[in-house]
């Protein structure tokens, strides 16, 4: 057994910022620690946008200059395997969210100067990593111990998306070996550090249902390895609604059935 320093012990067992109150429409009281949440859906259903929404809630503080924001003041580790993460988009989201909170223009204008530096200070709470293969992702996850040990403010780990390397692995013969190890590593990170995990998974494999293309009870194609599907405690399925620009979100284990739309200032639930 490796010896632990006092600081490490504190980081491991000390309380990390709570996620209570994050997106009540999806999580009720809030997402539980040591738990893996999966956002599953087709291209353009707003999975990544939803993660961005979570990131901004996490890294914003609860209160700023008497302004009640309702953020969590937590640090986030974001692993981008899709090479899609846009920091400018996140910064813009933060700005729009803040602007929406002011009662009137004069109040907002008085804060405008501070806004930029405030947003920058929030962005400090984000750690971004990019991975280009499942092996790279595995080794990166293993090395996360160091970051999690040294920073007790990290409450959330996000991966966008877990399915990026699926076909690559499938076709190069690596198949599920890396994915099994990744799942095991994630599991141990959650247990050891009491953090929350959000991952997106793209619907890249056709779901063969007996009813043809109709959305029925079985909404997803479980094409990943068994270990992964056992690891995911709650799966949120994103379904595009044909007639509107809204997206339906269903989670059977949490009894969630809601809908949202992506607006100028990010995600809006109905």
């Amino acid at each position: 057994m490796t010896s632990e320093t006092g600081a490490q012990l504190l980081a491991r067992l000390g309380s990390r910022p709570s996620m209570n109150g994050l997106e009540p429409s999806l999580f009720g009281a809030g997402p539980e620690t040591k738990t893996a949440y999966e956002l599953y859906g087709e291209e353009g259903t707003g999975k990544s946008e939803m993660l961005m929404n979570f990131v901004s809630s996490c890294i914003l503080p609860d209160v700023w200059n008497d302004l009640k924001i309702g953020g969590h003041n937590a640090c986030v580790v974001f692993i981008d395997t899709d090479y899609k993460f846009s920091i400018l988009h996140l910064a813009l989201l933060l700005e729009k969210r803040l602007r929406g909170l002011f009662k009137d223009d004069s109040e907002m204008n008085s804060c405008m100067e501070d806004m930029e530096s405030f947003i920058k200070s929030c962005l400090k709470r984000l750690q971004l990593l990019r991975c280009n293969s499942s092996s790279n992702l595995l080794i990166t996850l293993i090395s996360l111990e160091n970051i999690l040990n040294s920073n007790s403010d990290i409450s959330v780990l996000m991966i966008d998306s877990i399915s990026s390397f699926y076909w690559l692995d499938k076709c190069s013969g690596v198949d599920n070996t890396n994915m099994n190890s990744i799942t095991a590593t994630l599991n141990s990170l959650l247990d050891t550090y009491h953090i929350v995990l959000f991952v997106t998974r793209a619907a890249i494999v056709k779901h063969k249902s007996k009813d043809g293309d109709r959305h029925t009870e079985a909404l997803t194609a479980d094409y990943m390895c068994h270990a992964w599907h056992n690891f995911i405690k709650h799966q949120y399925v994103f379904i595009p609604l044909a007639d509107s620009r809204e997206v339906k979100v269903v989670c059977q284990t949490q009894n969630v059935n809601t809908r949202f739309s992506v607006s100028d200032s990010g995600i809006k639930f109905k």
Partner: protein
Amino acid sequence: MQNSRELNSFPIAPIHKTKLSGAGFLIVEDLKDIKPSELSKETGIDLEESLEIITLVLGGDGDQKASKPTVSALDILHLENASPYIITFSEQVDSMLGGGVPLRKVTEFCGSPGIGKTQMCMQLAVDVQIPEAFGGMGGEAVYIDTEGSFIIERLVDIAKATVQHCHNIASENQEPDMLKVMGQFTMESVLSRIHYFRCHDYVELLSNVHLLPKFLKEHPTVKLVVVDSVAFHFRHDFDDMSLRTRLLTSMAQSFIQLATDSSLAVVLTNQMTTKVQQGESSRLIPALGESWGHASTIRVILYWEGKQRWAWLYKSPSQREAVVPYQITTGGIRDVVSSKLESDEEGEAPAKRQRTS
């Protein structure tokens, strides 16, 4: 950096990729300093194939690749300016195409039966041979016939007319160069310089296309490859549409490769098919579907409007979309004499979409 390229991005058989990754060989670096015998022992791939894999992966990194020249658009421009066109004997069609059928490109003529696709191909196969003294390119042609529509009598007519045309120019100008080459430019010589292949099914067609590079090496003066028609064997009896798409798109790549590597013109013909759209009247579109639509660089649709034949430049990277009339005479493809056109058309612009009622 250079050697972190993944082995699965090389053209290695899937079964070998699995064996390589299973034995821990994942990137180029992993194969450095490995002997074929060691690789064979560790992966279970046989010795000969191990050698092939090592050569493929490491050999490409050596001098051969480094010497591959980079070409600027300016180099291409000079190349394009220096490369001639194959004329069609219809000035209007030629100018619509920017001077004629270009070398280094794939040109497709689409149209219903009897519109003159084969005539166009024969005309081009003759015209590519016009001696350099007359501003031609003195080339040869490869003619791949899939439908059996190649009629030698028609070719003789077109060849005779073309030879006669050149003969007239030579006697008018009394240019010694012209008069000299006329001795060798005869109807018989024209026929002897068209290499004819008949393909009865798609397998024959594919194997012919596959063997063409070798043939062209032996016949370097070939400047035109005609496939009349490319659609015939792919239109019917094809249950596996994904196989069809794969075969067609890889054949398209072969044509483009042929055109650019050997600096020649590839001319394909294609049939038309009826497309029924919901809420719209049905209309004729080129056969073989959307994925084939990208196979040719230049696409010309030939169609009837009343009694008049029209050529519609539907797609071209360098020329504007246009429609011009043409006619077919005993001598081949020709411009429409303007008086005839006016009486036919009464000055009305042609509708650009052909509709079936």
